[in-house]
């Protein structure tokens, strides 16, 4: 019997150094009673053994989770897993949280050491500090979660705003969101305000409102432009323009470029900048070509109108009416062309602004809380695994904190030391899980 190992709190029967089981000896062949002695199979307390068995299951549980994450993470094509920055994970925050948890591991060890030495107040202080550090860890985690939630990074729709790739499905979602935003604006704003802000009639149709864009000189971030102005302006110059152009262009590569630019404008990924830079240049050229074409049409229409105007017939009213009607038609055509020119120019302005910002472009979703759909390849898988792993880890931290709270009011002397030891073992395990989660989630 290993008496040293049994100085703890096992029941006396387990200590039986020459303990007779069942109160009976057995008669041997020679008539002497033989004594059965208990032999402990493991030199640790039952509590600690139970805790270690529990930890064994926990090892397999987290190994399965982390292993699943690894195979999901590395099963995607290179470069398509969201980089930490794109999903608003700050590496230094992860490192800080790691250090907080490591420090809490030391403090709980110190609490255990102090309890063994019967320094109860010291043990309590260390345990209280561990509790505070654990709360700090969860606080930082909660702050991190809020960052994801505010950007629409959820595991699943309808809350998740993430799309796998910039395609027509994505374009349609962006358009729908803009429509919702405009409807909401129309609902809440009074007619007076609408007239004052946008300078348009209360019932604003897409084309009508776009006609006013040329008056709203602001491109994106000018302070004097109101939210309503920017909403209309950006709707027309982003999704409105892309929708019309994608519908007209037959070349799938050009279509894709336009959709890529749209996705970048809303939620950029800095790593894509080299590709987007080329797209933006070609897009600017396309806008310029369109503007040249429209300018030609504009000139033709103006010439036609000018040709009609002086031809005032000396004749009857019927001829006048015909000419007037023709003039109205031409003027309407000219207005439509003017409108398109203003839209194309606005588009050019926006492209220039994105080009000027380069890889530093932060995206429309960064500046406005409009919740526009975003393109984040594998974003939903990322969110599912991130929230599952960190969430389950956080639940473990929470359970540890509850145990600390329950333990703190007790006298933390040698009698409580085994409790602290078992709790510390659990806490260290939670720490180890985070040690692996930190590089996998924040650094890879």
């Amino acid at each position, binding site marked *: 019997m290993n008496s*040293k*190992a049994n100085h703890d709190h096992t029941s006396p029967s387990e200590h039986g150094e020459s303990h007779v089981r069942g109160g009976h000896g057995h008669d041997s062949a020679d008539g002497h009673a033989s004594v059965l002695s208990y032999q402990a199979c*493991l*030199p*640790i307390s039952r509590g*600690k053994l139970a805790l270690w*068995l529990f930890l*064994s299951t926990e*090892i*397999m549980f987290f*190994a*399965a989770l982390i*292993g*699943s994450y*690894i*195979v*999901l993470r*590395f*099963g*995607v*094509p*290179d*470069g*398509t897993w969201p980089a930490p920055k794109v999903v608003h994970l700050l*590496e*230094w925050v992860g*490192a800080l949280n*790691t*250090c907080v948890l*490591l*420090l809490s*591991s*030391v403090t709980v*060890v*110190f609490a255990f*050491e102090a309890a*063994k*030495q019967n320094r109860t107040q010291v043990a309590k202080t260390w345990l209280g500090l561990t509790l505070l550090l654990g709360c700090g860890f969860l606080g930082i985690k909660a702050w991190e979660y809020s960052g994801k939630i505010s950007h629409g990074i959820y595991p699943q729709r309808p809350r998740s705003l993430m799309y*796998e*790739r*910039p395609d027509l499905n994505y374009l349609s979602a962006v358009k729908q969101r803009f429509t919702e935003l405009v409807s909401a604006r129309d609902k809440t704003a009074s007619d007076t305000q609408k007239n004052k802000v946008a300078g348009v009639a209360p019932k604003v149709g897409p084309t009508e409102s776009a006609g006013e864009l040329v008056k709203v000189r602001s491109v994106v971030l000018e302070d004097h432009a109101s939210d309503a102005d920017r909403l209309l302006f950006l709707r027309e110059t982003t999704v409105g323009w892309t929708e019309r152009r994608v519908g007209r262009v037959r070349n799938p590569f050009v279509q894709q470029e336009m959709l*890529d630019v749209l996705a970048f404008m809303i939620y950029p*990924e800095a790593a*894509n900048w080299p*590709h987007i830079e080329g797209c933006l240049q070609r897009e600017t050229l396309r806008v310029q070509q369109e503007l040249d074409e429209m300018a030609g049409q504009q000139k033709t229409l103006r010439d036609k109108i000018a040709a009609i105007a002086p031809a005032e017939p000396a004749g009857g009213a019927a001829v006048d009416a015909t000419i007037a009607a023709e003039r109205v038609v031409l003027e309407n055509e000219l207005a439509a062309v003017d409108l398109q020119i203003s839209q194309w120019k606005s588009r050019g302005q926006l492209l220039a602004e994105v080009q000027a910002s380069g890889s530093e472009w932060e995206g429309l979703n960064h500046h406005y809380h409009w919740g526009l759909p975003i393109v984040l*390849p*594998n*974003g939903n898988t990322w969110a599912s695994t991130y929230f599952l792993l960190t969430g389950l880890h956080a639940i473990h931290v929470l359970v540890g904190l509850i145990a600390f709270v329950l333990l703190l009011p007790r006298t933390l002397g040698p009698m409580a030391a085994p409790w602290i*030891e078992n709790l*510390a073992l659990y806490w*260290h395990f939670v*720490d*180890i899980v985070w*040690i*692996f989660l*930190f*590089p996998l989630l*924040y*650094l*890879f």
Partner: protein
Amino acid sequence: MSDDAHVNRTPLFFGVFIVLVGLTLASFWVANAEGLFALPQTKWQVMIGISTAKAALVVLFFMHFWWEQSWKYLLTIPTMLMAVILVVALIPDIMHRRQSYSETRLNHSAAEDAYGPAK
């Protein structure tokens, strides 16, 4: 626990903590160092190596494995084996899942050609 209550291990535990913080910073540095490793895979392996070293330090000293008797192997080695086998078993179906994707499914999945070649 098989350790002796009279031994003052505070300096040891504090030293281990310092090493752990140092290793955390090392991970951070490896992840951000430009041109240190030609392949990202090497970088990942180094970071996982560092994490394993950190976990080993926690287990050995904070969890007192250094001073425990041989029962520790009974509980941990089979568990770790199960864990590793599970991960390996996931590789054909999960990690290589795209190899069996149909063309339709590929068209709707996140793909490298969405933004040109992989970076």
